[in-house]
């Protein structure tokens, strides 16, 4: 059996292991039990060769070549795999871009003075964005600038402009390459809708054409919807600056009301943080015998708050059921994305209330409080009150919080990194040229119960920094590496001599927290800035991406936009494409000649580390920089 009875195999973290043990003792079902119950999982679906896009089907292609080779419409494995992958990218890109749209709508309402609990906290960034978008900020009030910027951004969700302003951040080589290939995104929503159109029966029947549009669709996310989300969140909630925080289930405090903020969107959670300081609610908590109100973060909502305010994190994707198993969580407030429907089932075994807040994301078994930015602070207070009242139902005998937290740093926005470097990428470029830093790798993406929790994220990060490769993390990977102690300046001791020297000189960790999963755009912006500084294309830089434990459709969109932006990406979990050797060949080889980057699949992080190091040295060689020999690297790795 691939899944296992031994909890040590399921996660590298002691806090997770303790709670999985508790779940088993008490017969509470978790994600690992459900994965085991699903085995074997359908091979047609895993290979991507099943199609249920129309009612002549469902169809599947026999991967052994003897049974049916075409669906009823005549689609072969190449077309079916491309259709499925295209729709996966569109779903992921839609999730990110819809998140971006929600932020933009509140931004527009804030500009119109219709909200409570929101401010334009970073006016400098607002003015810079306005200039970038061709809006003259001179002599204008911040709200007036925001109104104009909001309108201009809304136009890019539709077809008014036919282009994305953020793509102007690219080096000219990349812009030309996209134009030549016809994959420059024309509008944020348009590419997603067109992908659904193309994958309807009888539209795009050329798998290469479908996949090229898949890249364009993902770029409408990375350089569109997600980037709008990141940039406007910075304007409204503050651009992250380095901040100390902590992580682990131990961040829950038995003496306090504990409220977890789970999901992806900071719109509501930011006002909840304000509401939790309300004297009336703090007094109510005291009345119930609690010392104070303790807010903790889960997944990317947590990352957004940790980046800006140092909110303690209780965990990443696979911790969302386990945090409930502590018996110490009074309320779990969820917005959307990656929230397992099972959280309400686990919560029923305890006193915890699950509060859903987005009208587009309701949960059976949760209490729904509809988010409305016009009454933001009032709703925030209502939710905190529910958490305080739930504390009264807590059974102290059922509280089991694994001890201890790990210190970590967050807040490395591009602005913060450039700030640490003295306002210019030059010191970083010089360190790369000198070989002190050999390159950088973005380790991103999710957790997946098919592979041990956090093992891929942490092992890969360790191998990278040992070999003087700077690591940038977002999402679940940030939580994983924070727990492993790699995200403190002191962790420079674990880095190779060159990276150690740079980190110690700047007082930064060798693994930098760049935010939530929409904040992968910060990595794109940094890569583009480095390329423009050097006058080269992004694909020439000694950079790589990795998603060792990805699971979600959003991760597929991220992987696609990172590769289409010119950064080679190694996936730890197999995407559903292996039923078409042609598609595999295109993504793992052919793309290199098309966009200057490709995908690889490697579940073993030690092997992935070697792949990435070889890639980075090859890119260094291409730039005429000092490079290591592969033999030497093998010896080092061993």
């Amino acid at each position: 059996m691939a899944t296992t009875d031994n909890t040590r195999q399921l996660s590298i973290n002691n806090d997770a292991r303790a709670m999985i043990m508790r779940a088993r003792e008490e017969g509470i079902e978790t994600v690992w039990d459900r994965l085991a119950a699903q085995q074997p999982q359908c091979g047609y679906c895993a290979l991507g060769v099943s199609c249920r896009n129309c009612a002549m089907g469902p169809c599947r292609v026999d991967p052994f070549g003897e049974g049916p080779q075409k669906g009823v419409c005549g689609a072969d494995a190449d077309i079916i795999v491309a259709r499925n992958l295209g729709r996966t990218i569109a779903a992921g890109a839609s999730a990110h871009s819809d998140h971006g749209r929600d932020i933009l709508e509140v931004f527009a309402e804030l500009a119109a003075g219709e909200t409570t609990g929101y401010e334009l906290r970073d006016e400098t960034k607002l003015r810079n964005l306005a200039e970038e978008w061709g809006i003259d900020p001179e002599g204008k009030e911040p709200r007036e600038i925001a109104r104009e910027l909001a309108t201009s951004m809304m136009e890019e969700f539709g077809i008014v402009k036919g282009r994305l302003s953020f793509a102007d951040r690219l080096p000219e080589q990349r812009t030309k390459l996209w134009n030549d290939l016809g994959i420059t995104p024309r509008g944020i929503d348009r590419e997603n809708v067109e992908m659904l159109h193309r994958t309807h029966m009888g539209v795009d029947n050329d798998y290469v054409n479908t996949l090229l549009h898949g890249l364009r669709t993902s770029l409408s996310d990375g350089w569109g919807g997600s980037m709008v989300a990141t940039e406007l969140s910075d304007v409204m909630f503050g651009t992250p600056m380095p901040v100390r925080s902590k992580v682990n289930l131990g961040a829950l405090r038995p003496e306090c009301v504990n409220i977890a903020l789970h999901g992806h969107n900071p719109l509501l959670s930011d006002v909840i943080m304000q509401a939790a300081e309300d004297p009336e609610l703090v007094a109510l908590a005291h009345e119930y015998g609690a010392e104070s109100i303790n807010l903790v973060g889960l997944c990317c909502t947590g990352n957004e708050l940790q980046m800006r305010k140092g909110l303690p994190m209780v965990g990443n994707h696979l911790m969302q059921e386990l945090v409930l198993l502590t018996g110490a969580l009074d309320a779990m407030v969820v917005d959307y994305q990656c929230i397992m429907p099972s959280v309400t089932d686990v919560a029923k075994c305890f006193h915890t209330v699950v509060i859903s807040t987005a009208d587009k994301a309701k949960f059976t078994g949760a209490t729904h409080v509809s988010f409305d930015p016009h009454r933001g602070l009032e709703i925030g207070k209502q939710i905190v009150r529910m958490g305080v009242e739930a504390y009264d139902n807590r059974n102290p005998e059922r509280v089991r919080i694994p001890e201890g937290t790990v210190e970590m740093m967050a807040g490395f926005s591009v602005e913060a990194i450039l700030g640490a470097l003295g306002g210019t990428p030059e010191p970083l470029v010089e360190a790369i040229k000198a070989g002190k830093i050999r390159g950088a790798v973005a380790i991103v993406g999710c957790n997946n119960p098919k592979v041990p929790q956090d093992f891929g994220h942490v092992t890969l990060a360790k191998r990278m920094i040992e070999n003087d490769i700077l690591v940038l993390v977002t999402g679940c990977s940030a939580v994983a590496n924070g727990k492993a102690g790699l995200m403190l300046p002191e962790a420079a001791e674990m880095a190779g001599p060159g990276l150690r020297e740079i980190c110690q000189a700047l007082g930064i960790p060798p693994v930098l927290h760049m935010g939530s999963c929409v904040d992968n755009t910060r990595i794109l912006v940094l890569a583009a800035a480095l390329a423009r500084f050097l006058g080269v294309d992004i694909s020439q830089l000694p950079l790589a991406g990795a998603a060792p434990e990805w699971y979600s459709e959003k991760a597929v969109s991220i992987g696609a936009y990172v590769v289409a932006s010119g950064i080679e990406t190694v996936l730890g979990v197999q995407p559903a494409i292996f039923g078409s050797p042609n598609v595999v060949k295109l993504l793992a080889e052919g793309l290199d000649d098309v966009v200057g980057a490709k995908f690889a699949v490697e579940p073993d992080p030690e092997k992935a580390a070697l792949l990435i190091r070889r890639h980075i040295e090859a890119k260094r060689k291409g730039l005429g920089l000092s490079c290591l020999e592969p033999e030497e690297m093998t010896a080092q790795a061993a």
Partner: protein
Amino acid sequence: MKTVFVNPERCVGCRQCEFACAVEHSLSRDPTQAVFEIPTPRPRIHVSPGRAYATSFPNKCRHCDPAPCEQVCPTGAISRDAEHGLVLADARRCITCAMCAMVCPFDVITFHELGDGIPVRVAAIKCDGCVERVDAGRPPACVEACKTDALVFGELNELIEAGRARDTTALLSAAAAATSAAPAMPASIAGWRAWGEAAVHLNEGVHHGHH
């Protein structure tokens, strides 16, 4: 003698054989109605996961001769249909003692509510070789559902011979190339299974504290 033969390396774990089997043993024999029937129709074939992801085995009654289940059944509920070479269970005579399940080398006899023509009661259910379909010149439901030839229906020795021919080719080429004797897999399947195998090594590695 015709039988259902399993090529385990061809199984992709889609479990469509299980679904087709349950429908075939429903009252309506219609997939859109069968799921609403009471008692719920049950499959007689069980696709079990292998050790690694992406491996599985469709397990069903092998219709042994002599059949241990038939030998231990105290009421004679299990009998042999000599004409078709099948071991059949008669729910009307079954006393639900489970002796047959205890001695079955393949663990393929289960106990569920049955309603086809008798008052609803729990009894032993097992593969009946889709005898009615076979008499009508059709393959068993599980074989018809299987599009990868993991389940094939035919003369036992002919199917064994076909397999031997494949294996012999593989063995000869293996001797020359000093590679595995397993039959060559298409690139699609090989890539898919390689990830499953690597992932299971990874899981076991963590157990041994390699991280």
